[in-house]
């Protein structure tokens, strides 16, 4: 089983955004791996493991697009346990979902993975498009917003559960396929490869931390630099952001002293009850 997992760096979502001249100033941003992509890496690793710390089978290849600095996030992913990484050089801030999907497609055609795992969205752009566009371009089945995933023993299909508005949907897809993961995917028993891990196999309820051994091993793992020209991809975006602005700020209101005062205000002042 060969799994390609996408890894986008995002500015730390806890930091306050700085706006200026219709742009977001990211000059002093501290970057980290997109949370959902971290979950995607965890998913991919579990699919190659017999259980927590158990024997491994298969290969996990991490892919990112961006400047050299992104090596830092990729080293982190290699330290978690991914086998190797590919860094496509480019200006990650200038790409849209279409450009990213085209680049990932070109890498898929080179690497021929059985499965592509992505986070369901990046927490900066919040677009939630790349996995679906990629699947459409490849003509592969897709399973989005996964809460769990079970890979069949023969490696030819996967049965998943998806978080949907009406509840939970169970879907089966033939491989190769594109999947995108949601928060529940890191549940202790949310992911396993049936041929590899027994029904009782479980992992920690979080993406794994890199161990010291993992960090040492990651230094020797390959991060292959690839250019857009080598991939033969046109990375021109279809969508551009003309301007960013801060959302209207809500003013903090008043503190009320009692439930009686609260209900009186909701009834007489706000007129909502």
């Amino acid at each position, binding site marked *: 089983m060969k799994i390609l997992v996408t890894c986008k760096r995002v500015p730390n979502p806890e930091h306050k955004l700085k706006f200026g001249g219709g742009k977001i100033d990211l000059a002093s941003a501290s970057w980290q791996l997109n949370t959902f992509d971290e979950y995607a890496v965890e998913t991919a690793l579990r699919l190659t493991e017999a259980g927590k710390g158990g024997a491994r089978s298969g290969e996990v290849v991490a892919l990112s697009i961006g400047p050299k600095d992104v090596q830092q996030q990729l080293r982190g992913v290699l330290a978690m346990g991914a086998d190797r990484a590919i860094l496509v050089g480019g200006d990650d801030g200038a790409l849209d979902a279409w450009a990213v999907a085209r680049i990932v497609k070109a890498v898929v055609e080179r690497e021929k993975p059985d499965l592509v795992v992505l986070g369901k969205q990046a927490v900066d752009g919040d677009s939630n498009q790349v*996995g*679906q566009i990629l699947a459409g371009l490849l003509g592969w089945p897709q399973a*989005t917003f996964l809460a769990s995933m079970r890979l069949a023993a023969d490696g030819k299909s996967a049965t998943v559960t998806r978080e949907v508005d009406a509840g939970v949907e169970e879907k*089966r897809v033939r491989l190769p396929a594109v999947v995108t993961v949601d*928060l529940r995917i890191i549940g202790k028993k949310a992911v396993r490869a049936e041929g590899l891990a027994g029904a009782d196999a479980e992992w920690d309820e979080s993406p794994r931390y890199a161990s010291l051994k993992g960090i040492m091993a990651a230094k020797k793992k390959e991060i292959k630099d690839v250019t857009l020209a080598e991939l033969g991809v046109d990375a021109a975006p279809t969508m551009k952001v003309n301007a960013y602005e801060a959302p209207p700020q809500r003013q903090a209101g008043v503190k009320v002293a009692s439930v009686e005062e609260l209900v009186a205000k909701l009834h007489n002042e706000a007129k909502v009850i």
Partner: protein
Amino acid sequence: MGAVLVFCESDDKGVRSASLPALSAGAALAKLTGGDLAAVVIGKGVAAAAADAAKYAKRVLVYDDAKLEAPLAETWAPQLADAVKRAGASALLGTASSTGKDILPRAAALLGAGMASDITAVLAANRFKRPAYAGNAIEEIEVGGSVVVASVRQTAFPPAAAGAAGAVENVAVGAVDALGAELVALHATQKSARPDLGEAKVVVSGGRGMREGKNFAVLEELTDLLGGALGASRAACDAGMVPNDLQVGQTGRVVAPQLYIAVAISGAIQHLAGMKGSKVIVAINKNPDEPIFQVADYGLVDTWEKAIPALIAEVNKLKG
């Protein structure tokens, strides 16, 4: 300018109410571009929904086929792409529901069209506003190409009003290839009499501070008294207190009710992203320093154990 085509999700009764805001966003776009408003309905046995859609759009394209019963992106996205071509549409819109978010980008891929996610305002034929960075930035975006696909934030547009008398057109469905994908089952959340989170006028949400799932009972009582929907923070969902489909936030549902009551919720950025658009926000939390109070119109510093039963009694008194 071409037509504006709106993807209408449906159930046995008709067009799902979640799709009505997409129809009104579509009408706004059609007005700007001078194009006609068209709708597309997909599924098996969707005649009632098609007739319903005709109350909102001039033309309704219907893809009614047994092979389209399950809402699979693999089989539905090609119908959407076909409908865009058939309608001569320059825009395809749909609500950013879990179905819309799954299928619309795939349709965009098949059409070679750019896509805007989760739009909150229509500025021009290919210019929109949308939130990014968990709602901490508003983008004005421009989508290139001859066809634009957009998913519509349900809470940002009013439900469309019925009034049109459109023509329903059944399209002969061609070969359907699910690419080896199949819907195994839908485990629907227990149906309740409560309104959908996205449409409720009142939402009562509980957070980590509720500690246990059984403690939500008192919130449910308040919710039902106010005729609202129950929500929860990601922390409460992650802790398994309530099902994940109650989650309000950047990665859950986005709500904008008249009244949002946040109980024992700290107010993490990703939660605020899902409820900041509410008209009136009430925060009830025992810790006065929680960030939720910075966005609340009315804050009450108290434990939920004391405040919620008192609130229920007071509302009952008001209702006489």
